[in-house]
């Protein structure tokens, strides 16, 4: 059987990191982000990255780590708050940002992964994000043309995988991960747990193994919480 499971992130990333490349990353905020692979890319020092990710992490966690080391040249994101270093680099002209509305960004990843070159959405019509984009009327509604995204590498966090690369995500940590998995020319996945071949019910698989080239066991599972909100016992 083709061996998709690698011993660690360095081994899995070997041969797939090139300065100037485009990387797509799963995760929403700090939820479901590939912590182990981000740390390994930081250690590898790959530069001039274009990173496609809904958010940019915080100063000392997530993609914020790659911003600190100035490894990222451009972000394609929907929201980049909660990150002072991002703001500093952006205002200093050291970092480029392309905003995509969140649903458009998700759909662009899915489209890139599914061989759809472009699609028409109502999102963003009449806003500054529509500038330079084709506008078109279908059935008297106005739509914008948005393009699919294909990245050189996808980094993904899943909950469980089997040796074939079949993936299951856990709760709201699914978010952009299955989409990122489809739109990388190479997709590397870190998981919290490996299970044996045949141990995942074929109706419960979220991402089929065809999209996954390499797998590692996640070593970093901090899963930091951005907004810890709780209610009192009595509520």
């Amino acid at each position, binding site marked *: 059987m083709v061996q998709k499971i690698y011993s660690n992130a360095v081994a899995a990333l070997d041969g797939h990191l090139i300065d100037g490349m485009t990387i797509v990353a799963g995760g929403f905020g700090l*939820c479901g982000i590939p912590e182990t692979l981000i740390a390994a890319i930081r250690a590898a020092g790959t530069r001039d990255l274009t990173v496609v990710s809904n958010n940019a992490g915080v100063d000392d966690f997530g993609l914020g780590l790659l911003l600190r080391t100035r490894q990222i040249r451009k972000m394609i994101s929907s929201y980049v708050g909660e990150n002072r270093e991002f*703001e500093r680099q952006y205002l200093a002209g050291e970092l480029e940002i392309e905003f995509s509305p*969140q649903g458009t960004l*998700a759909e662009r990843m899915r489209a890139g992964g599914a061989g759809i070159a472009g699609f028409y959405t109502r999102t963003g019509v009449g*806003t500054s994000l529509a500038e330079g984009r084709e506008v078109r009327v279908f059935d008297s509604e106005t739509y914008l043309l948005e393009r699919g995204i294909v990245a050189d590498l996808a980094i993904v966090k899943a909950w469980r995988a089997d040796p074939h690369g079949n993936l299951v995500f856990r709760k709201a940590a699914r978010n952009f991960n299955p989409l990122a998995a489809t739109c990388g020319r190479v997709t590397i996945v870190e998981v919290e747990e490996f299970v044996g071949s045949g141990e995942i019910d074929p109706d419960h698989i979220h991402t089929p193994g065809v999209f996954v080239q390499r797998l590692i066991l996640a070593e970093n599972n901090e899963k930091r919480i951005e907004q810890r909100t*709780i209610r009192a016992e009595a509520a």
Partner: protein
Amino acid sequence: MEVLPTGWTRNEMAKLAAIELQDGFYVNLGIGIPTLVANHIGPEIDVTLQSENGMLGLGPYPMADQVDADIINAGKQTITELPRTSYCSSADSFGMIRGGHIQLSILGAMEVAENGDIANWMMPGKMVKGPGGAMDLVAGVRRIIVLMDHVSKDGIAKFRRSCSLPLTGQNVVDMVITNLAIFERPDRQSPFVLRRLAPGIDAALVADLTEAHFER
């Protein structure tokens, strides 16, 4: 400087918005005051809350010992599941939104224009953080209610002839609930109508503090 009447509290505004929720509705609540709407959904109606990060059927905040980093809403707050909860990818979640399957979204705004335009993603003089899911919500959800203060901290009317800030969406707002009044329109070709005044607020004051044209 004259002290202006404050009208409804934020909690009262949320309660007024909650009246708009109908039995069986799927609803997306924005960050900030709109989140408070959840506290006013009565047990007599069956409403399912959606969060655009891929969770349908949001439960309340967890007890301290229930916190799960993988169960968060779009505001990145820890929440809980309900028996009806399902998860999906961000693409499928925005499929619900863009495809018109969510009946109602309640959002905050910096400005709303009399033609239904909304501006709520770029703060004047601050770095642009991005629209998040706001542009998708206003473009895709069938009915949009805005909860906002009637005037800005500087006393400037937020319900305007046209938005001065960059738009989030064009002609998408159906109802505006401020601390002073409620404006609504029956469809997106019609002008807004003043529907209700906060206690102690009269129509003349609202007219004074509103730049938008509205009917009475």
